[in-house]
């Protein structure tokens, strides 16, 4: 009898947590599918299925452009930070040099800096960067100035985090594997390419996803450094969606936009969650 109560207790707790976490998302999906007037009637199940919000965003608004911008910034940022961090992680976990732990500590300290603390300085740098950039390139590619600057600042804020995480992962790879490769005649670069890279792939994926989510969700820099509608990223894009009249908050469109930008992240995470963290070095050493 006790067992049954235990089960009921366990499952009801789980249900509470799930509802708490998932309900807002469910409600936004539902709202996004409703027409303009139905949005304002509270209900648990949609009274109508109406793709008008999605149609509006994808075909009458520059929302697709903001998605592309975000994808561009996220891809560039994540690839640069992961590449740099991968090599940094190797030296920080494997090469003995003076001040190594100090260096790691500084990296951790830097990653604690709030964005707002450097925002004004960054903006001044951005203006200089713009001047410099405009002097070199002609007007046709001017549009990407803001995006390139975003990539740069995001990379700057991401690298401490990715270096830290990858260093921790790489410390977990047994030293003997590397030594075996050294005895087999492999150079450091070859070890990084042929031994560490395949072993670290799940860790790199995990870190890349976390970095990507951080970039995807970033708002403050994106708002500060983008000036025109053509170089908005999605977070700013959503914030700037406006209704037909001044006092209307277009909930339907905003919810549809949120769903569009969230779904890819959810899908990526679900697809990769099996690979994340698991089986880094299974079978290599004893046990």
């Amino acid at each position, binding site marked *: 009898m006790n067992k049954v109560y235990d089960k009921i207790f366990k499952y009801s707790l789980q249900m509470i947590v799930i509802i708490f976490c998932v309900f807002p998302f469910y409600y936004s999906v539902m709202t996004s599918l409703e027409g303009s007037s139905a949005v304002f009637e509270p209900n648990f199940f949609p009274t109508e299925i109406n793709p008008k919000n999605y149609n509006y965003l994808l075909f009458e608004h520059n929302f697709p452009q903001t998605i592309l911008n975000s994808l561009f910034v996220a891809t560039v940022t994540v690839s640069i930070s992961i590449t740099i961090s991968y090599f940094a992680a190797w030296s920080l976990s494997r090469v003995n040099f003076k001040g190594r732990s100090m260096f790691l500590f500084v990296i951790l300290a830097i990653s604690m800096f709030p964005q707002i603390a450097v925002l004004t300085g960054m903006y001044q740098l951005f203006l200089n960067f713009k001047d410099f950039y405009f002097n070199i390139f002609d007007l046709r590619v001017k549009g990407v100035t803001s995006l390139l600057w975003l990539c740069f600042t995001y990379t700057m804020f991401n690298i401490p985090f990715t270096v830290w995480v990858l260093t921790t992962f790489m410390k977990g790879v047994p030293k003997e594997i590397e030594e*075996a490769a050294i*005895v087999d005649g492999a150079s450091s670069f070859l070890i990084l390419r042929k031994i560490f890279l395949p072993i670290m792939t799940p860790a790199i994926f995990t870190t890349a996803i976390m970095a990507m989510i951080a970039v995807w969700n970033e708002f403050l820099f994106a708002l500060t450094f983008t000036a025109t509608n053509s170089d908005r990223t999605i977070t700013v894009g959503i914030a700037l969606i406006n209704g037909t009249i001044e006092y209307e908050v277009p909930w339907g469109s905003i919810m549809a936009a949120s769903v569009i930008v969230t779904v890819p992240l959810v899908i990526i995470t679900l697809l990769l969650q099996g690979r994340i963290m698991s089986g880094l070095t299974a*079978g290599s050493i*004893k046990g």
Partner: protein
Amino acid sequence: MADININTVNKYFGDVHVIKDVSLDIKSQSFTVLVGPSGCGKSTMLRMIAGLEDINSGTISIDGQVVNDLPPKQRNIAMVFQSYALYPHMTVFDNMAFGLKLEKRSKDEINERVNEAARILQIEDYLQRKPKQLSGGQRQRVAIGRAITRKPKVFLFDEPLSNLDAALRVQMRVELAKLHNELEATMIYVTHDQTEAMTLADDIVVLDTGIVSQKGSPLELYDKPNNMFVGGFIGSPKMNFISSKILSKSSDATEVDIMGMSKISIPKMSASSSEGDSVSLGIRPEHLVVNGDSDGSWESKVFVVEKLGDVTYLYLEKDGEPLVAETEGHSEIKVGDTVKVGFPAGRCQLFDSSGQAFK
């Protein structure tokens, strides 16, 4: 063909002096075992020969060539690690072929060598598997196979069997001995297991806190330990040490007392000793004579009886001095019995107060 000469080598880890002026000559094609308790520097010695650790002073030469500054791959060595250290993402075949591919060997040669090694180690059926699909023993074979395929002059083994269960360890030990005969390569083997050392070695090097305590054939170390450390380390159960005093000295023997119960004249000498000195008398459990005639004797109560089938170990104690004696497997002796243990003079060792053996 590949002698290894180690000449007054020193190694420091920070302030810790782990290898102290060690000199060793290892003969080509011999099987040398480095033994010692944890932290004695045996693994460090091996890693210095491999080139995975730098040397602070002294020289190591392989085949006449000083290799101090050569990277591992130019030393013509292969190493087998305690934890196997297989590449987890590669198949068994690729694990074994990795070194050969780096040497840019032809495909045919790689195939031939890997298959040859797989045949010797009986892992032909697993060549396409990943390490995680193998058992511990199979993984260890792959690790050894990875070393064999490169046909090095010197094999280095770092406690390769200590992760295996007891039965498998005995089996692999025999196979390693066979492998050594087949490959005709110089092998250096590190272990803390003195059974492995005794059974595999041509030469045993006993290391104690960074110093070579003694080097010699297994039986040399067993019969004539240089000092108490080697005497206690080689042999299982351990050699018994009984504190004693020199009663008198003659030209070829030293007379000592055994716990005041009897006197015994042992045919060992030490020039620096004199009458009245404290010494330790060492004798192995298997050399004690239980309830029989002998040169000296001792009587004591039995505290524990261990019956192993082929032999029985009796744990005795007298005035705080423990003693282990071996007797026949079907002994009638029970706990609480009083037995007389005899000391054959020819089997006794004497060690002075600093632990050095009388010759």
